């Protein structure tokens, strides 16, 4: 055992859940699919900044390549041109500093909730045994799944599965969280509960968050920065700074400011949606 390692570990656990966060940048990123002669450009020259410790929400019309953007940020795919950097370092592949919560649940069906949460640290071997289990149990209790630790994902409701995924991501102490429409497919009630829960978690940790959604209300409720995308080939239309106080609550969505943001976002998105509608006609 490396004594230094143990020392840093105790100090980490001492200052609770205050984790480091990193600044993410996309510079001139483009991505096409298909052979050269038949290539479809999905993302065209995107440059956008995701400030450290802030929650940046990406909204765009459906089918605009948001998931491709996520895959590039996570390192599952490589950009054709340009680069993605994290604190100045170029992303070359997936790594545990960037945790992705996927659109559909990606909990491993043959592992219990607890096994899912401990999977990452076990695979890397950087946390083990009783202390890992204890940490995972604490996290699961925090996300309200204390009684469901030994259940399989199929036994959990949709909302519980998303919370289990959040716990599974958080235990890896990522510096960046990437959320790819994580609450899609939940009913309205669990969705708004999850949004509040997620916000509370974010406001506690202040970790760099990249959150992809197609819901404008969700976007405004959560975001520090709102990135609005265009249709394919996708580019950034505008970045709106959402200047609502934290901690946030739902009442703020009815404020005049929020209404102004919504109007601005709607107009931009509506224009784009109309374009794609006209094309498909």
């Amino acid at each position, binding site marked *: 055992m490396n004594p230094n390692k143990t020392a840093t570990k105790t100090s980490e656990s001492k200052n609770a859940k205050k984790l480091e966060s990193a600044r993410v940048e996309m510079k001139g990123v483009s991505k096409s699919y298909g052979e050269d002669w038949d290539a479809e450009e999905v993302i065209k020259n995107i440059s956008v900044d995701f400030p450290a410790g802030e929650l940046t929400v990406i909204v765009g019309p459906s089918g605009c390549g948001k998931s491709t953007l996520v895959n590039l940020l996570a390192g599952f795919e490589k950009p054709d041109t340009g680069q993605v950097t994290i604190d100045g370092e170029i992303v070359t592949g997936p790594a545990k500093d960037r945790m*992705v919560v996927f659109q559909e649940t990606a909990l491993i069906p043959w592992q219990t909730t607890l096994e899912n949460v401990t999977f990452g640290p076990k695979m890397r071997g950087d946390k083990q045994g009783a202390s890992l289990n204890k940490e995972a149990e604490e996290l699961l209790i925090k996300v309200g799944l204390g009684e469901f630790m030994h259940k*399989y994902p199929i036994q959990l409701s949709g909302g519980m599965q998303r919370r289990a995924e959040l716990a599974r991501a958080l235990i890896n102490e990522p510096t960046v969280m990437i959320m790819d429409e994580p609450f899609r497919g939940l009913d309205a009630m669990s969705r708004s509960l999850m949004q509040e829960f997620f916000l509370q978690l974010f406001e506690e940790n202040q970790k760099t968050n990249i959150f992809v959604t197609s819901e404008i209300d969700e976007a405004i409720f959560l975001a520090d920065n709102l990135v609005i995308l265009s249709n394919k080939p996708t580019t950034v239309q505008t970045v709106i700074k959402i200047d609502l106080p934290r901690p946030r609550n739902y009442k703020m969505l009815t404020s005049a400011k929020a209404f102004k943001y919504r109007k601005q976002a709607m107009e931009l998105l509506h224009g784009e949606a109309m374009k794609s509608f006209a094309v498909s006609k």
Partner: protein
Amino acid sequence: MSTISNLFGNTTARRGIGSLIGFVIIWHIGAMIDDWTGYDLLGIGLVPPPGDVFAAFLGVIPKAGYWMSWVSSFSRVVTGFLVAMIIGIPFGLMLAVNRYFRGIFFPPFEILRPIPPLAWVPASLIFWPTNEMSIAFVTFLGAFFTIVINVLGGARSIDISYLRAAQSMGATQFDLFWKIVLPGTLPSIFTGAAVGMGITWEVVLAAEMISGGGTQGGGGLGFFIWNSYMGGSLEQIVVGMISIGIAGYLCSSAIRKIGYYFMPWRRLF
């Protein structure tokens, strides 16, 4: 007494027993209708009534030859099946995970696969030194192709998001295989095993009839049926058929039990 009332207290068991009794009654009516009315029931006029078959069953139970048939058919099925599993599962997994392996081995596999196992019987009788080996080989083929196709399909249809999630959490290729690909393929492995087991019984019976296994070693249940046919014992033919039904049922429930044990997350639906 209490075990019987337990048995009948269980809805599933009650339904099962009820349906078996119903089946035997219909069988009896079908077999006896000629005697009762003078009219033959089309197709099943010659089927012996269940009582006669039951009597024939009691007749063969004390005979060692009948049990020898069980033993030899069973050992052929188990041998062929196990070899097919041992070769087929790794082969299917390799086809699924390695592009080069698939490029080399998939085309010949796909050409051999449509050949019915029974078409192999004459060639394998000539090729293998003993009857026993050729029957085992044909049984193996019966299960092998089904198992491989199921394993391949199962491994290829694993949701990519599990692989991505595991990868981003730092899993190595080795971990991906053992923690994601293999458990993710288990349901298909057991489906392949169940289907493959069924084919194995079909094939072993036919191979036993064709090879007339009586000359070397035990004849097996296939030969038992064939022999009864040659001897003109209609009741004993049906006894042989029911024996195979029971044998097949035992095999598939064993596979189900093993699958249940290995896949706890599938017990829930």
